[in-house]
């Protein structure tokens, strides 16, 4: 029965920060404690969410009226490029790495990550490439301004002919981000495979762990393509090689393949852990087992495999031959199947439950609602003839914001609220949380729902000015964006004041089942220390009378005693 995949040698990692775990200064040091690193990632990422959001306000300010009147169009292009880049590489990826760092070791009963020093290195690369990226605002000619795709030839035109330019700094930053992610991925995968608590076979892992594994394997498979593409682009830009330059016989479309071979899976790298978060939270707040645990677990890998073979759906109108378009339409549509399995399982989990509408649950429900919508527009976009019309219009922008903000960011907010008491040891204020949810849901809907119509009518994305017939949709979107800006106020207020002076949190405030909830809040440096629990059953056995670990009472008492 007992599957021992736990290596006790790994238990003994030393706390490298001498003053102990209660010193705030450890957050500013090269600390190797995954819980410290997790919080470092999350706080850094939230800071960049503010910067990226500020850029979004500027974008929406320009787009509230048809003519290009707020900025010179060159400035607009730089702003939206940096907005997309910051949101993806400085907000989303880091915040997900942060949650993964916080959650993986406690959830599998490990004391820390497999490679704590690499882990700290992966984090400290984030401020390095962030600063490089931000510095690019100040180089002559301005920052990169060819969109986050950075397609050549536009990205290698280098109008001023200077060696150091915004695009070059952009490529360096993205490559460093890729290296950081690869290091992170090696660490997460190793930790999950090698360091699970005794008894925790694959089909006893929490779904969040499944999705992290699926996502991080995708990183390992996909990132080399992007990094390779970025290096070639760097050479073309800086040293005049012609991988993608037609002057030397290169092919600009080749870059698009490199780019999307990674960047499509990247979307799933971001959304999979959020699927994990939904799968964790729905059972807790409806007090029911996750419906079809095994199906949901395996569906994650269905998504991983399929998402490696769909990238051409971003290139349906680049001159791709018919057979290839049809083939990639089929593969893309197939992804709807494992994704549907998850959606139906979540709804079945809710069915007949005892629903508690706490802030994290509200964000999950809102996220699921939006995800169903975004998934449906996704299938529309996979349909070649429809995509040929709406591709590269605001319909796409609306679609991916429904996924990336209205689903992924919602899931992240849910996770932050849900695990806040566990890792800070403080409760947050429900009232403020609900205000945050309401403003976010209203703002996000107003921001991105109307833009679907702008796209259907033929408004191209990335424009700084547009024909007056699109104005109404853009005015609504801009109002929504400003509401989202306001929504950040209750969130920041809640986080800061709860952490400073919130009520202290019990070990298991939500009465949830999971190893992390058997630990004190906040958990000690090495989580379970010498007493690693032995897992007996699948997680989420609400109401089933199946204990999750051997001698559960011992851990409950221990977690209370620590307090």
């Amino acid at each position, binding site marked *: 029965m007992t599957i021992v995949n736990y290596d006790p040698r790994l238990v003994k990692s030393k706390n490298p920060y001498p003053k102990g775990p209660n010193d705030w200064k450890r957050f500013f040091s090269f600390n190797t404690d995954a819980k410290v690193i997790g919080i470092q990632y999350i706080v850094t990422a939230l800071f960049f969410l503010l910067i990226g959001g500020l850029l979004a306000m500027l974008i929406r300010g320009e787009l509230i009226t048809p003519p*290009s009147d707020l900025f*010179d*169009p*060159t400035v607009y*292009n730089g702003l939206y490029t940096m907005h997309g880049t910051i949101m993806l590489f400085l907000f989303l990826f880091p915040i997900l790495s942060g949650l993964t760092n916080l959650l993986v070791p406690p959830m599998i009963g490990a004391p820390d990550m497999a490679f704590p020093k690499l882990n700290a290195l992966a984090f400290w690369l984030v401020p390095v490439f962030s600063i490089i990226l931000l510095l690019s605002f100040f180089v002559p000619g*301005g920052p990169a301004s060819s*969109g986050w795709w950075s397609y050549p*030839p*536009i990205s290698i035109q280098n*109008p*001023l002919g200077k060696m150091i*330019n915004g695009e070059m700094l952009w490529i360096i930053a993205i490559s460093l981000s890729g290296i950081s992610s690869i290091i992170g991925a090696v660490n997460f995968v190793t930790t999950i495979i090698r360091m699970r608590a005794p008894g925790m076979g694959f089909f006893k892992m929490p779904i969040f762990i499944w999705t992290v594994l699926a996502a991080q394997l995708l990183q390992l498979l996909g990132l080399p393509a992007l990094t390779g593409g970025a290096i070639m682009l760097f050479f073309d830009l800086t040293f005049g090689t012609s991988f993608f330059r*037609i002057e030397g*016989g290169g092919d600009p*479309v080749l870059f698009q393949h490199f780019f999307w071979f990674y960047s499509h899976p990247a979307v799933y790298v971001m959304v999979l852990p959020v699927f994990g978060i939904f799968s964790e939270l729905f059972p807790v707040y409806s*007090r*029911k087992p996750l*419906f*079809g645990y095994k*199906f949901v677990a395996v569906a994650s890998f269905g998504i991983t495999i399929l998402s490696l073979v769909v990238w051409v759906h971003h290139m349906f*109108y*680049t*001159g791709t031959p*018919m057979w290839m378009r049809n083939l990639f*339409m*089929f593969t893309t549509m*197939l992804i*709807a*199947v494992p994704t*549907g*399995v998850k*959606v139906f399982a979540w709804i*079945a989990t809710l*069915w*007949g439950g005892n*629903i508690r*509408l706490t802030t994290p649950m509200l964000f999950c429900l809102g996220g699921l*609602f939006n995800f*169903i919508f975004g998934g*449906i527009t996704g*299938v*529309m976009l996979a*349909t*070649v*003839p*429809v995509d*040929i*019309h709406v591709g*590269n219009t605001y319909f796409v922008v609306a679609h991916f914001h429904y996924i990336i903000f209205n689903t992924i960011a919602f899931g992240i907010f849910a996770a932050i609220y849900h695990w806040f008491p566990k890792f800070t040891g403080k409760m947050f204020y429900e009232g403020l949380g609900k205000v945050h949810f309401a403003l976010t849901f209203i703002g996000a809907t107003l921001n991105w729902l109307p833009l679907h*119509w702008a796209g259907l*009518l*033929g408004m*191209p994305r*990335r*424009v*700084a*000015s547009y024909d007056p017939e699109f104005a109404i949709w853009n005015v609504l979107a801009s109002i929504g964006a400003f509401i989202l800006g306001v929504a950040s106020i209750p969130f920041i207020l809640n986080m800061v004041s709860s952490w400073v002076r919130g009520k202290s949190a019990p070990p298991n405030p939500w009465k949830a089942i999971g190893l992390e909830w058997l630990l004190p809040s906040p958990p000690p440096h090495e989580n379970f220390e010498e007493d690693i629990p032995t897992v007996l059953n699948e997680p989420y056995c*609400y*109401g*089933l009378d199946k204990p999750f670990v051997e001698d559960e009472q011992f851990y409950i008492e221990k977690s209370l005693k620590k307090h």
Partner: protein
Amino acid sequence: MNTKIRRIKKRGFSKTFIIIIAVILNITFSLLMGYWSYSWLPIQASEAAHYVDNLFAFETTIGTFIFLGCTGTMAWILVFNRAPKYDESNGEPLEGNLKLEIIWTIVPLLLVLGISTYSTSVNYKLENLGSKVKYDYGAEAPFIEEKKVFDYGPIDVISRQWNWEFVYPNGIHSSELHLPVDKKSNFRLITEDVIHSFYVPAFRLKQDIIPGSIITYSLTPTKKGVFRLRDAMFSGAYFSENQTNVIVESEEIFYKWIKETVKKELQNGLNPAGSLYQKRLRNGNRGWATVKPAPDPKVNDAGIESRPHDS
């Protein structure tokens, strides 16, 4: 627990009734959405348009049904399964249901296979894209023998940072694209710098134009009128200005236009980016870096920048 079960049993009949009513309402509303979806799209001005719109309406109908089915269930749950305050007891401990899980794997699978097959057949009907041939940098774009039949063409579509120019088989140059209605016209898509995209929303058609390659393309306009042609692939500073008009006219008027335009002298064509750039220079060249816009194209028909468009 017991009372709960009894409550559900007693509601048994009314529950199926409610479900039937909900499904009927959902189907009705979904069909209505599909019907309305046509009005969300621009005028149908090409042969492709009604295929695309039918597909989109079909997907809107199915999508609405699924969306309302799922979110309606969620709403039901939120109304009837809310835990009373301070009630932290468990719900019904269902772990899964193999039959259900197989159904919701197979049904979506069949559905998406159906949609892709339908779309594939539409693709084969449309076949707008001809061949894509690479040629050497700096060389003239080669002539390509088009295998498919067409009624008019080929018209060279030349895209630049940031203006459009159309060269007709008899050698006239124009800033706007004139096309005869109901005739299949053929194009050679050419770019002189970066990637652009030939996009006419009223036609529902879009094709990227790739540096170093020549792409042949055909389409049949089906409605007379003025339609916007928009560059849909981000092409740098004045990308938003890289638009012109497609003027679809009767065959008679079209050939009259051809005959009259041949006689006109070459003059400066539409180039809104050029004038914006001059304005920027006059204002002290503020802003971030950009390449210089291409010079004004020399054309026989200079077009009208503010011509009102139908869609």
